[in-house]
Structures are given as structure tokens and as C-alpha cells.
């Protein structure tokens, strides 16, 4: 053997200047050209990265444009005046209003030389074309130059006489048409609509504007009274402070500074979590697409290595792909997003949500979103780049398979993260929901790190499957690096959307359980217990006219011996666990005759009717009856706004079955009242759901008409809870799009890798169908494993989120709201959603992959 040669000393320079960026520039050039050559793949990656950037940038601009800042909205508030003053009506310590309420007092505060005009605001009832309604009202002489810019006149003219008003298009839609003469305010004075004006920013608002002293009569406390003022000198901050001390709210250019957004830790964490989830999903989704590129360019990368490209330089070529495609996509999203945002501002698209403002581009978040998009693109290219740099160059150049092995991921770190995240999530239940989500994302990151191990275990379990599926599973496991990224993408999407669906269903169940009406859903309850006979008769007439042909079931309101109104509700504290049984939130207990019983029970029940006739309460929940008696609690209303402490009472009761037990609690016969020391008073009407179909608008109008015409009448519309049926299909759709995207990109990659095996299968006589099944099996494996693991992770995550976000009711009534684990909140699993996710989605992925696979055999060069 010859003497050892010296370790490399020659550098081989030719005197040319060396610079590090040269190699990177070369890598960028290769990436740029390749991106243009592989247009389909580039478009896919640009969409994956660029579309979220576009949507978020547009949403930010749209929201900022529609959001009118104090400075932007100043002209709409004060016109060309120097300031606007509104009295706050804040009483001082001895209860007297100290705020200046007369023009003379305000003039004294403003000093000599000022001119003021009244500008009052409040609300006014009116009877328009479609009945009674209510709108914001302003008293303002719009002809005065000080009001210029506060409204645009669209049609007609401005009010010039006390009986004239102008309205906004929103008010016009509610029945105050241009040219009509609706009756306005509780005096129902007819006022002529002489014009239509539009608020410069709030295009959907319903407003009425008339001359001072014609619309607003509810300013007894001085609230809402105001003036526009023209001052000889510009208003200073000192003036503003002086006027504020006099209980006046001041709006002037000098104080109209835009409030800077204040973010507390929770907001920052929430934004951080959204960023992590967004970047994670983009990285996992685009990862396989980059891997496809790396796989297709394996020989090219091997050539780079053969020409002296170091592993780092080979990595750089693929990272340059990330820079070119990620950066390009982010730029595309940014430019298009800003362009669409600008276009929507020009076209006043804000009208759709009733907010029109000048174009406002919040550059810091917009650029941050674009930068994040670009960073996600580069991050997605990291793993494929690392794998490509590890490939066996000689093997690739010789056309053999690269023998570089995929690593097993980081199972220990993953397991630690999952356990830590799960424990932290459960411990965070008492605190804000954002901390629960933070802990869950930690666990999710752990699951992503565990994915390669999951893939290996799943493939081992595939031993019993038929050949094509077994081959697909084995191949997936042998190429864990490729498979794991796609499985993780599916897993992340499935977990996030399962969590949302479980939390959504549980919250719905919680609301449903907390809401237990005492009468069937759809019933209209009219309660006039505060009315005298004459007003009640008037109210009845109005109800009969508003609900023509509807059978009205009479019930009674209750009074005690002193004549005070009384309301009864039912309830027992359950001895076993201290839970309150009964309903704290429903309509008060119905009291009446046999017809009422039949109406509430929803069916004819002679046994219950007999007991009812004998003076027993009929109860539809057996837990409420102890020893044949029902416990009631009574609230005595001594006057209209103060009530006496509840008094517990019991009455004899029988248990019966209602047609819909969720919509019935108990009915009390009038004959049971004397024993309770109560007197009936016919002041309640129920309209049966089958006969009444009111729109929400009609309900509001009926309530308003009763209030205006008869006085304080309680009108209650018992509705079924909205099940928001569109939410879960939307969640599933989002999960499906993300999961299919990740799965199909990875399956395409697998199909390319499998080509020699498919050729071998063809050579030994496999039918095209079998080869198709192998590729379909790959897609099914990826989507199935990801969806199953994601759903299994998402269910407990959703339960924890549900537990941390119970709005009221359950936690309020539990003896110890923090003892979550002892007492689970109502958990409802979205079975259909889960079935579609875990079974339907993998089948769909397999079907799509199977249908679109090329099964023509490509002769593969095999040199060993």
C-alpha cells in the first residue's frame, strides 16, 4: 500500500472570486426553471400556500375597510362642526342630574362666539306599512351647513317642517316608504317621509331623522340630548377635558384618535395557535408535493452530487424550491389579496355587511401573513430536502432504488408531548378556553411526531389483508418518510375538525338540556298579568287579529291574597348528588283547565285528565314527584320591579307521559290554587304551534304593537333550538378537502415509487384491477390511518373543550364547577360526522386514487 496521501490541501482556485450566494443563486435558477417546467405540481403548491394567504389578506383588508375607526367616522358624527356634545345624564351623588341640559348652559360652557344647533339621538316607535316597529331616531336640522357629510341625500328632499322626516334605506325596508305618512312615536303622530338619506358608513342602519323637538320624547333624564357646535377657535384637549368634567361627551377632531388594539396574553396565544395550526397544516400538506418533486428529480439531484454538489448543496436545491414556490405563492396571495381588497373597497362591497369605509390596508398583519405563507413553503420543503440529500447517489445514477432508509421519527418526544399536552389540557379546564386549545395543540404536535411509528404499527397489523392492500400497507411503511407526512396532514385536519364537531354537538346538547320549556315548541305565550281588564281585552283583540283563526288556549296568571303577581316554577334538589332537577330557565308553570292539560301533554290521557280534574298537578318528569307531591317555588312580585323571596310549596301530583317530554314539565289545575293561597286571573293565552306560523319579524311587530297599544304584555315565543345543521357538513367538507389533498399528493408519489413493483406484478400476471387496487390501497391506508387517529384524538379534545366552554346552566348548578372529572358535562358525539370521516373519507380517497391511476405498465429499467 502506498504511503498515506496528504489530506486535501489543494483548493483548485483559478483566481476567480468565490462567493457563497453563487451556489444558492444556481439552486434558485434550477428551482425557478423546474417550477415552470412542472406547472401542475407548481400550481398545486402555489394553491396550497397562496390560497390561505389570499383569503386571509383579503379578509383583513375587508374587515379593516368595513371597520370605521373613530377618525374615519368623525365626519359622519359631527359633520363640519367643530365638536359635538352629548349629555350623559350621569346623576351626581344626591341623585339630581348635574349635566347641563339647556342650550344656555352649554353656550356658557363653550364661551362667547359659539353657535350651536340641536343634535339629539334616541329611538322611536312607528307604525309603518307592516305594523309596529322601532328605529334609531335623530333630531337634527340637516339643512344646516354644520351637518354636511353626516348623511347623503339619495332621494327627495330634507325635512323643512315639524311634520316631515327623512329615513335611511334600512328604515324604508321596515315599512317607512318614501312618500308615505307613517305614525311615529307613542303619540302616533303622522309624519311625512319627504326623503331618503344614507349614512356614509352604516348603509344598513334603520334611522329616522326629523327636526328638533319632533321625534324624541324620552329624554327625561337628559340622555341622548346633544348639540353640534361651531366655535370661534379650534377645540383643544383642555376644552374636551373641561366639558367632560361637566358630564358631557365630546366628539371633536382633537380627541378622535384611533384606539390602538390592546391585546392581552390570551389574544396573543390565540393568534399564535392559529398561526401554528395554519403553518403546520400547510407544511404537512405541501410536504408530499415537494417530495413528489424531489422524487421526480432524483437523477437530477444525483447529477448535482456527481458534479460535486455536497449534501448541503443538494438540500439547498430543494430548499430553493421552497423559496421559489413558497415565496411566489405568498407574493401571489399578497398581490391578489390586496388587489381584491382594494377592488372591494372601490365597489363598496362593505355594503354587504352594512359597513362602508375608505380602503384600509393593515400592512403589518397583511405582510406578516404573506411572510408566514412563504415560511410555510420553505418549511414544507425541509423534510423532502433532508431526505433527498441522504439518497444513494451511485444507486440513483445506476437506475437502482436508493437504499437510504427513512428514519423512525421521534417516538419518545412525541409520546412525551402527547401525554404532557393531554394532562395540561385537562388541568386547564377551569381557565380560559385558549389555554385548553394550546395544550391540545401541544398534544397534536406530539401525535405528528408519533406518526411514523403509527404507520409502522398499522402496516404490521395489515398482515391479514388481501394482497393488494397488504402490499400497499407494506410499501407505505417501507417509505415512512413519504407516508408519515401525508398521514400527519390528514390526522391534523381530522383531529381539528372532529374536536370542533364534538365541542359543537356537546355545546348544543348542553343548551338543549339547559332549556326545558313548559309548553310545546312553537307555542306563543301572551302574558298580561300586569294589565287591568280593559287593557287585557284590548291585548286579546290585537292577538286575535294578529293570529287569525288560531285557537287560543286560556290559562291563568296568579295573584296572592294581597293582590301581588306570583309566578310558580317547579323543582327539587336531587338528594343523591345535589343536582337541581327541573328547569331554571323555562317559561313559568302553566296553570289552567283540562284543555290546557291536553295542549301541554300533546295527547288525550283520560287518567291524567281525571286526576287533574280532581285538583292534582300532572307532572311529566317522575323525578319531580316525591311521595305523590310536586314541590313548587313561588315568586311574589310586590310591585313591578321587586320580588319577594321564593316560598316553597307542595301540591298533590300524578306522573303522566307527555307526547314530547322535552317540551313539557307539569300542568297545575286552577282548583289546586286555593290550597296554595293563590287566586287565578285569566290573563294568559297560548296559541298552539300547529295553528301559528309567525316569522321573526312578525313576532317582533306583534310584541311592539301589544306594548304600544295595551301596555306591558309578556309575549314569549317558544322555539325549538336551532340545530345549526349546516355546521357539521361544513366541518366535514373542510376536513375532506384537506385530507384528500394530502392523501392524493402522497399517493401520486407512492404510485411513481411503486412502478417497478407494479411492472413485476403485471409480469407475473396481475390484472390491471389488482394494480389499481394497490394504488387505491395506498390512498385508503393514508386517509384511513390519518382519519382514524385524528378522530380518536379529536374526540377527547372536543370533550375537554366542551367542558371548558359550558356557557351557563350546567356549571352554574353543579355544586363544585371545578370538579370536572367527577361530573362530565353532557357529551354528544357526532356519529354521522365521525362515520363519514373514518369510513367514508378513506373510501372516497381510495376510489379517487383508484379511478385516476394509470395502470398501463411502464417498462422499468432495473439494473442491479
Amino acid at each position, binding site marked *: 500500500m502506498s504511503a498515506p496521501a*496528504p489530506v*486535501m490541501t489543494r483548493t*483548485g482556485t483559478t483566481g476567480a472570486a468565490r462567493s457563497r450566494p453563487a451556489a444558492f443563486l444556481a439552486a434558485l435558477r434550477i428551482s425557478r426553471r423546474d417550477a415552470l417546467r412542472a406547472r401542475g405540481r407548481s400550481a398545486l403548491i402555489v394553491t396550497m400556500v397562496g390560497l390561505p394567504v389570499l383569503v386571509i389578506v383579503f379578509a383583513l383588508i375587508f374587515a379593516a375597510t368595513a371597520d370605521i375607526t373613530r377618525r374615519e367616522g368623525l365626519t359622519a358624527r359631527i359633520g363640519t362642526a367643530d365638536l359635538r356634545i352629548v349629555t350623559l345624564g350621569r346623576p351626581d351623588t344626591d341623585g339630581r342630574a348635574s349635566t347641563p341640559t339647556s342650550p344656555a348652559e352649554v353656550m356658557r360652557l363653550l364661551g362667547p362666539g359659539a353657535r350651536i344647533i340641536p343634535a339629539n339621538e334616541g329611538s322611536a316607535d312607528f307604525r309603518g306599512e307592516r305594523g309596529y316597529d322601532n328605529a334609531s331616531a335623530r333630531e337634527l336640522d340637516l339643512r344646516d351647513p354644520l351637518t354636511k357629510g353626516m348623511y347623503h341625500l339619495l332621494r327627495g328632499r330634507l325635512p323643512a317642517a315639524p311634520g316631515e322626516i327623512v329615513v335611511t334605506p334600512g328604515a324604508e325596508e321596515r315599512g317607512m316608504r318614501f312618500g308615505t305618512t307613517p305614525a311615529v312615536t307613542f303619540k302616533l303622530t303622522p309624519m311625512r317621509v319627504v326623503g331618503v338619506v344614507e349614512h356614509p358608513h352604516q348603509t344598513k342602519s334603520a334611522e329616522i331623522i326629523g327636526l328638533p323637538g319632533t321625534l324624541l320624547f324620552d329624554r327625561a333624564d337628559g340622555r341622548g340630548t346633544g348639540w353640534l357646535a361651531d366655535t370661534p377657535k379650534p377645540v383643544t384637549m383642555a376644552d374636551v377635558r373641561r366639558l367632560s368634567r361637566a358630564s358631557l361627551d365630546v366628539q371633536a377632531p382633537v380627541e378622535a384618535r384611533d384606539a390602538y388594539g390592546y391585546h392581552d396574553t390570551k389574544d396573543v396565544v390565540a393568534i399564535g395557535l392559529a398561526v401554528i395550526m395554519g403553518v403546520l397544516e400547510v407544511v404537512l400538506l405541501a410536504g408530499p408535493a415537494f417530495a413528489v418533486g424531489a422524487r421526480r428529480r432524483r437523477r437530477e439531484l444525483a447529477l448535482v452530487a456527481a*458534479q460535486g454538489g455536497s449534501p448541503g*448543496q443538494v438540500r439547498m436545491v430543494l430548499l430553493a424550491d421552497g423559496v421559489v414556490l413558497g415565496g411566489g405563492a405568498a407574493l401571489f396571495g399578497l398581490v391578489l389579496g390586496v388587489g381584491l381588497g382594494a377592488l372591494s373597497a372601490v365597489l363598496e362591497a362593505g355594503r354587504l355587511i352594512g359597513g362602508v369605509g375608505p380602503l384600509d390596508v393593515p400592512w403589518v398583519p397583511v405582510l406578516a401573513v404573506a411572510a408566514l405563507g412563504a415560511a410555510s413553503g420553505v418549511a414544507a420543503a425541509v423534510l423532502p430536502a433532508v431526505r433527498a440529500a441522504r439518497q444513494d447517489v451511485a444507486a440513483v445514477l445506476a437506475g437502482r432504488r436508493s437504499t437510504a432508509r427513512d428514519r423512525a421519527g421521534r417516538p419518545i418526544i412525541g409520546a412525551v408531548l402527547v401525554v404532557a399536552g393531554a394532562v395540561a389540557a385537562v388541568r386547564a379546564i377551569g381557565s380560559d378556553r385558549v389555554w385548553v386549545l394550546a395544550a391540545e395543540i401541544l398534544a397534536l404536535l406530539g401525535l405528528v411526531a408519533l406518526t411514523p411509528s403509527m404507520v409502522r404499527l398499522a402496516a404490521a397489523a395489515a398482515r391479514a389483508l388481501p394482497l393488494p392492500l397488504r402490499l400497499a400497507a407494506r410499501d407505505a411503511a417501507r417509505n415512512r418518510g413519504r407516508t408519515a407526512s401525508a398521514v400527519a396532514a390528514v390526522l391534523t385536519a381530522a383531529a381539528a375538525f372532529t374536536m370542533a364537531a364534538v365541542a359543537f354537538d356537546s355545546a348544543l346538547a348542553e343548551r338543549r338540556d339547559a332549556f326545558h320549556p313548559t309548553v310545546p315548541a312553537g307555542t306563543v305565550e301572551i302574558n298580561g298579568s300586569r294589565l287591568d281588564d280593559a287593557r287585557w281585552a284590548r291585548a286579546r283583540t290585537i292577538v286575535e287579529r294578529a293570529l287569525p283563526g288560531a285557537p287560543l288556549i286560556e290559562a291563568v296568571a296568579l295573584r296572592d291574597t294581597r293582590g301581588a303577581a306570583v309566578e310558580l316554577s317547579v323543582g327539587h334538589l336531587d338528594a343523591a348528588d345535589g343536582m337541581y332537577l327541573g328547569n331554571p330557565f323555562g317559561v313559568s308553570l302553566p296553570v289552567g283547565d283540562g284543555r290546557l292539560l291536553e295542549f301541554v301533554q300533546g295527547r288525550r290521557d283520560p287518567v291524567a285528565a281525571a286526576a287533574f280534574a280532581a285538583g292534582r298537578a300532572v307532572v311529566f318528569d317522575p323525578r319531580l314527584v316525591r311521595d305523590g307531591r310536586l314541590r313548587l317555588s313561588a315568586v311574589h312580585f310586590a310591585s313591578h320591579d321587586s320580588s319577594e323571596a321564593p316560598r316553597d310549596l307542595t301540591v298533590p301530583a300524578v306522573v303522566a307521559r307527555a307526547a314530547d317530554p322535552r317540551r313539557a314539565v307539569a300542568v297545575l289545575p286552577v282548583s289546586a290554587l286555593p290550597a296554595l293561597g293563590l287566586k287565578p286571573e285569566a290573563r294568559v293565552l297560548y296559541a298552539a304551534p300547529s295553528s301559528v306560523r309567525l316569522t321573526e319579524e312578525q313576532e317582533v311587530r306583534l310584541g311592539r304593537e301589544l306594548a304600544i297599544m295595551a301596555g306591558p304584555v309578556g309575549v314569549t315565543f317558544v322555539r325549538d333550538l336551532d340545530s345549526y345543521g349546516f355546521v357539521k357538513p361544513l366541518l366535514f367538507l373542510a376536513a375532506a378537502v384537506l385530507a384528500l389533498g394530502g392523501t392524493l399528493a402522497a399517493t401520486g408519489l407512492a404510485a411513481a415509487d411503486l412502478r417497478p413493483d407494479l411492472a413485476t406484478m403485471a409480469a407475473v400476471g396481475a390484472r390491471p384491477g389488482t394494480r389499481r387496487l394497490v394504488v387505491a390501497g395506498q390512498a385508503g391506508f393514508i386517509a384511513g390511518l390519518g382519519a382514524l387517529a385524528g378522530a380518536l384524538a379529536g374526540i377527547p379534545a372536543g370533550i375537554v373543550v366542551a367542558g371548558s366552554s359550558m356557557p351557563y346552566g350546567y356549571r352554574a348548578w353543579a355544586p363544585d364547577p371545578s370538579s370536572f372529572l367527577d361530573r362530565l358535562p353532557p357529551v354528544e358525539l357526532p356519529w354521522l360526522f365521525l362515520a363519514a370521516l373514518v369510513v367514508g373519507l378513506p373510501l372516497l380517497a381510495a376510489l379517487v386514487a383508484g379511478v385516476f391511476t394509470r395502470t398501463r405498465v411502464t417498462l422499468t429499467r432495473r439494473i442491479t
Partner: protein
Amino acid sequence: MSFDPVVRLTDVGRLHGDGPGAVTALSEVSLAVEAGELVAVMGPSGSGKSTLLNVAGGLDRPTSGDVVVEGVSLSRLPAGELAALRRRHVGYVFQDLNLIPSLTALENVTLPRELDGIRFRDARRQALEVLAEVGLAEVADRFPDEISGGQRQRVAIARALAGERRLILADEPTGALDTPTGDEILQLLRARCDAGAAVLLVTHEPRYAAWADRVVFLRDGRVADTATAPLESAR
């Protein structure tokens, strides 16, 4: 001709796998190629010709023995320095698909220099010179799929010679070409040799081996025979 050979293999062995399933690709191969020398390697399929070329350029590492290129022993070089040695001293030419399709002929030639940190402006000047030497100055800005197979191989040879490189490892460079074009490539390689390059050429065609100063026959990974100035008449 310089005193040291450009590449020297000493008792090189290459075993694939280990244990009873191990396959011997090369065994105790010793070989030196000096500047100005064209050495052809012949042998049946699986005799280890390509492995020999991979080992000689540092694309693959021997399991025993030592390889010295331009006075530098490759056995203890880390991957990064091995890559650096390749881009400064070794040029590979394969049977086909030698060029990166998204780069022009000129950019393919500048690639090793750019990877080495040379600015494109400087690398371009050198590359144009080499392309002119192989008679391809006029296709410098064309992409690989816009030029003929023979031109592609000549671009690959130009790339192998760009900068200070003088070792060409050519693996069946004529395998995908017709005979006249193949002859042209061999002529070019011979000319580069005569101008001072060292060429190790793997071929299974005796008519091309005839251009060599020396022919090494491999069988089962061992040097079975060596012939000097063979088949002179075949040129």
C-alpha cells in the same frame, strides 16, 4: 506528463452488504491513470466496472484499500470535502441523461463552478471557453432537449473539464449514441487526453477501447488482464 498519477486506486475492495449475503463488487483492484492517459475498462455485466468508476470519483467509498485523486486520499475525507474534491478535480460523464434539463448547456457547464462559489459571471467566461473547445459555442444557450444526443455528451465532457479539472470518469458515454457520433465523442475524449486530461472510460465495445492507451479487463470484481496499446488497427 506529471510525476503523480491523477487517480490511483490501491488494493481497492467494495463489498455490498455483510455476512453470508455480502456481494463482492470489487476486490483488490489497483490502478493508476496519469495525466494524458486514456484507460479503458472492459468486462461483462456485473463485473464491477461502474463501481470502479464510482469509487474512483468518490461517489462510492471502498470497503478496503485507498483511492488518491490529485494527491488527496479519499478514504478519510468527510462527505462535504469529498463533494468539494469532485467539483474541483473530477468530472463524470454518464451514458445519458447527463444534463439537468432545466439548465441551458452553458449553465450545466457552470454548475460545478457555481456550486464551488464562483460567481456566474466568472464561471460563464470559463464555461464558454470550454464549450468553444468542444465546438459547441453556438448551442451554449440552448436547453438539453433542444440539442442532439452527441451534443449533449459533448456538453457533459465540457462540464467535466470546466475549471481546473483533469480527471474524466466516463461510464459508457457512447452507449446511447449511433456509431459516427460515438466516434466523435471518443475523438474528443482522446483530444482532451492529449491536451493533458486523464480519462477512465468504461465501455463494452472493443472499437472504442481501441482509442485507449491501456485497457483493463475486469471479471467478478478483479482485474483479470491489462493490455497496452491494443487493437491499434481498429481506430
